[in-house]
């Protein structure tokens, strides 16, 4: 659905996007995860034709971006990073304007507006000016607008920036619903949990480069740092056996039980390890498997934490 090859974008001498290639398949939710200034918005703005394609090849919904930009425009929906609403227009007028811009017929326009207002639960705000809406309502309105033309691909730049946790979860539900109805979704985010929970596949991007692309599972498994917690009838014996096992990378003794870091996919190694222990006559009384989080993945691939994570120290210093 989206095919990007060797995309480069420079602001003057500064290379904001450095030779990026990726594909988004039909029906997928695909995320760009990266810190502020990574180049996410720049990539999106090139794909949606707001910035000119300087170098590289892009095709979207089957149309070549440089040869048929008009066709690309007609096939996509967009939710921008910044709020792009007219404060002095009503919710209904914003959608009506969009429908007219894209040349939707009047009956189709009116029907779509009704459908979408109910999807994003803004029916009661139909005649309110957008300046009277809360941040979350504005975002929902923008998503509704992006969906007006039944786009084949929906682009969202930081869709849940600045929203409270409940609203974010509702937003994810909308996006999942829209996706189930057949819209391919490309989004950028610097929230780990958003990338993790919402997307089928993720590209981690930093300093204008894609560092790694894969499904959330692939990325986590590739870390090889799954941890397994085991309690047995004889932990000392178990520790001795496991510490010589080639599949185990490190091992730590807990008050009651052993924490084992394994090299590879823990979901497959756990039964094998259990078999080994059982064969030695040990009794297993408890097990637990923990996959690495997206945070672990990000730190692993970029060698640092997302910049927003650093803010935690500020609060720590203030604590009594």
């Amino acid at each position, binding site marked *: 659905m989206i095919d990007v090859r060797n995309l480069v974008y420079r602001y003057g001498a500064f290379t904001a996007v450095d030779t990026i290639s990726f594909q988004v398949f039909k029906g997928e939710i695909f995320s760009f995860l990266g810190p502020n200034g990574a180049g996410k918005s720049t990539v999106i703005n090139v794909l949606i034709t*707001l910035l000119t394609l300087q170098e590289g090849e892009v095709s979207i919904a089957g149309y070549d971006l440089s040869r048929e930009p008009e066709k690309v*425009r007609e096939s996509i929906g967009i939710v921008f990073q910044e709020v*792009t609403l*007219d*404060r002095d*227009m009503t919710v209904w*007028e914003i959608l009506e*304007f969009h429908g*007219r811009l894209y040349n939707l017929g009047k009956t189709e326009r009116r029907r779509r507006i009704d459908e979408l207002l109910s999807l994003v639960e803004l029916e009661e705000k139909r005649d309110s000016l957008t300046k009277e809406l809360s941040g979350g309502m504005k975002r929902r309105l923008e998503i509704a607008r992006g969906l007006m033309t039944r786009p084949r691909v929906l682009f969202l730049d930081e869709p849940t920036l600045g929203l409270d946790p409940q609203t974010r979860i509702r937003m994810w539900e909308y996006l999942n619903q829209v996706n189930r109805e057949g819209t391919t979704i490309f989004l950028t985010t610097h929230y780990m949990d958003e990338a993790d929970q919402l997307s089928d596949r993720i590209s981690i991007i930093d300093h204008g480069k894609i560092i790694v692309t894969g499904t959330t599972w692939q990325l986590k498994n590739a870390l090889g740092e799954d941890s397994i917690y085991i309690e047995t009838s004889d932990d000392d014996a178990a520790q001795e056996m496991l510490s010589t096992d080639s599949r185990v990378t490190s091992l730590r003794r807990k008050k009651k039980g052993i924490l084992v870091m394994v090299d590879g996919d823990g979901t497959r190694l756990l039964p094998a390890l259990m078999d080994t222990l059982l064969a030695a006559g040990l009794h297993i009384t408890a097990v637990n498997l923990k996959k690495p989080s997206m945070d672990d993945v990000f730190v692993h691939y970029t060698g640092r934490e997302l910049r927003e994570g650093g803010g935690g120290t500020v609060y720590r210093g203030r604590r009594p």
Partner: protein
Amino acid sequence: MNTGFMTIYWRDMLRFFRFRTLLISSLVQPALWMAFFGIAMSSSFDRFSMGVPAVPGAEAVGYLTFMAAGVIAMTTLFTSLFGGIVLLFDKNWGLMREILASPLPRSHIIIGIALSGMTKSFIQAIIIMVFGLVLGVEFFRGLSPTGILVAVAGILVFVGMFSLGFLFLSATISISMESPEGLQGIITLLTMPIFFASNALYPTDAFPAILRDISVVNPLTHLITGIRYFAIGDNFTAIGIHFTHTPGDILASFLVLIAFAGVMFSLAWWRFSQAVIT
């Protein structure tokens, strides 16, 4: 797709009628000009011109009537120069990204804004004419109802063509500027010389040569010439000066306005095709 500019037009008019205060305040200024400057000046100017012998066949009109055409023109100039400001707001805080990423050709943005600005100028020109007549402006003297209709139509054609030129200019400046303050500064800088180097308040005949040259290429002069021709006639005296205009003069003035609008459209089109907003 070739009626896409109507979308832009619809939306701009929506805002215009939503902010009725803006319409009203834009009418207060011309009303004040006529009510104070016009009436005050006419009491002194008209006293001078009383001593000037009447020109046979030419109609003598008072100063208020003379400057009313200038007030209509000045209002059109202001409204048109500010007509594109919505684009600047859209660029910084509003819908410009949405519009630029849509299939709408960019020329339609310019055309839509120009048409809505022109409509606003029409509404204002008509209100000022009515207000002027109430104050004692002697427009359309001795004309039949049909004659008045033709004269009003003629005035609106001139007002429309003139406003297009300055709306294109306004759109060009708005899309190029970063802040509304900057736009405001440029507009203030432009309006002063345009207004005073014109025949709005006084005849240009007695200007020094340089100023007269400016007034000749000044679109405002040509708009006012056109308005006076339709509102007062082709042969009249005011402030003791005799004015005559042939239809050829009027056509020439109109051609200047067309040329100005044409140049300004090209400029706007060029700026819009360059515009990048992220």
